[in-house]
């Protein structure tokens, strides 16, 4: 079984978000980058496929060379090989196209990724990738088992979950549940040493035009100070919620 895990290189969840160049660019100054948390669930699930079912695991990202430490971290966690498509990721549509080109030449059975990245929150690359390739696709996955050429997938639905059966090849967009938080792995020293020797292939991008472009950013308006209500004056809170906020 050949597994490909798509990884986004994103600011750490605790990062303060700032912009530069007249609010047109993200300011990466002082920001630590990590494997997108949703992709980390996917990577860990891929490790289980490797350990329990003998899969080979390749990780891929679309981005310039500043993303390589993130790929090396994925290798240190246990992926066998890494691929970087050498173009800046600025549009989900073209990122999916770039990934599709790599998948076409790689004969992958299972493609895993997170359901969205925590920077642009586009939530589109896995579904577009599947559509470009005409592979099966399941979004918001909270469980995955593969037997032979069939995947059994749990998907979160509004107010519950459903079980889907689908034939490989398949693209899976995961979230927590695919594995649990406690199952996530931190690279150990041996992993980090081994990662240095694992192949990281840089691929030239294909020609493709963007469908969307980010034009600017804006920070939410600073909100007013909290109105504190005395713990002995619950009536006031109810009155504020009813008359002022009009939410009850």
């Amino acid at each position: 079984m050949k597994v490909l895990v798509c990884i986004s290189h994103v600011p750490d969840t605790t990062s303060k978000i700032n912009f530069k160049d007249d609010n047109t660019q993200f300011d990466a100054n002082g920001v630590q980058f990590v494997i997108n948390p949703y992709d980390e669930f996917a990577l860990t699930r891929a490790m289980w496929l490797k350990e329990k079912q003998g899969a080979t695991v390749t990780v891929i990202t679309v981005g310039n060379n500043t993303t390589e430490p993130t790929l090396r971290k994925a290798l240190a966690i246990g992926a066998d090989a890494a691929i970087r498509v050498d173009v800046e990721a600025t549009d989900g549509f073209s990122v999916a196209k770039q990934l599709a080109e790599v998948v076409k030449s790689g004969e992958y059975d299972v493609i895993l990724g997170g359901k969205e990245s925590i920077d642009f929150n586009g939530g589109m690359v896995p579904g577009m990738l599947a559509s470009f390739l005409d592979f099966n696709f399941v979004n918001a996955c909270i469980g995955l088992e593969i037997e032979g050429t069939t995947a059994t997938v749990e998907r979160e639905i509004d107010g519950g979950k459903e079980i889907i059966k689908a034939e490989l090849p398949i693209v899976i967009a995961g979230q927590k549940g695919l594995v649990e938080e406690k199952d996530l792995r931190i690279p150990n020293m041996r992993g980090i040493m081994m990662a240095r020797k694992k192949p990281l292939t840089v691929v030239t991008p294909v020609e493709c035009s963007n469908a969307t472009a980010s034009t600017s950013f804006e920070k939410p308006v600073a909100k007013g100070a909290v109105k504190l209500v005395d713990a002995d004056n619950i009536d006031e809170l109810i009155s504020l919620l009813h008359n002022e906020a009009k939410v009850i």
Partner: protein
Amino acid sequence: MSVLIYADSSEGTFKKSAFEVVSYGKKVAELLGTNTVALSINAADNDQLFKYGAEKVLCVSDETLNDFNAKSYASVIQQAAVAENATVVIIDSGNNGLYMGPMVSVNLNAGYTTNVVSLPNLDNGFTVKRNAFSTKAFNHTNISTDIKVIALAKNSYGIIENAVSGVVEDFTPSISANSLSVASVEKTTGKVTIGDADIVVSGGRGLKGPENWGLVEELAEVLGAATACSKPVSDLGWRPHSEHVGQTGKPVASNLYIAIGISGAIQHLAGINASKVKVVINTDPEAPFFKAADYGIVGDAFEVVPKLIEKLKEFKAQNA
């Protein structure tokens, strides 16, 4: 030309989000000077959509579409968009909408944006404002393709009445089988879901243990709210993961969010920021949540919440 809106339904009944996307779509159509067409699949009472501005409802009735299948649904939307010569396609941000959105986009060779919180700005092409960085910022995105696909963020535009006299037309798309099928569905019945709820009551580690969740549940019941929890609480196994809200959990965009014993870590706030009004109850006046909340009570949840429940019951009785 037209604006096509997919109005999602469950077991024949339109979801609340369907009315919001139709309200939004009507306004987009007005800006573009074109018609509003809604598409429904196996839904009853299609004329309900006239109230929110749908001038035409394309109504698909097909047993093979009883189970949601993203590929089939995306194909139906594509066929409707082509039939109606749609230049903008709008979907909601429910689990089904976000599942099929990217497929619709590729089918129509259309640029796609999610988390959209504004009407398009047409001054310089077609630009929308959207939530990004897990609601820590907004991003303006220009869509340059002929057809645009938009997923509207939940509770960002609102349900706005704009009654028109409309028509319901049957629409019969061609549906091809695919090798993906739903084997079973498990749904909690009779409980308000976090996605649908106007009010969400959420508990954190300050509640000390799962045995104390009766407080959260009772408060939620009085308010007709959904229950939720912080990440540590779901990680500790006190509550199911499906209740975890925050950056890597479920996003919340309710009208009212009540946080009990939640300190307000940046990752938690990122996931609930889209809620309109936030109330925090916490013993620690230094808890970061007080900086993000609209109303706050510094106090012990075990004393404050029972009083709140009692007072709300009185309030509900008077205002029923």
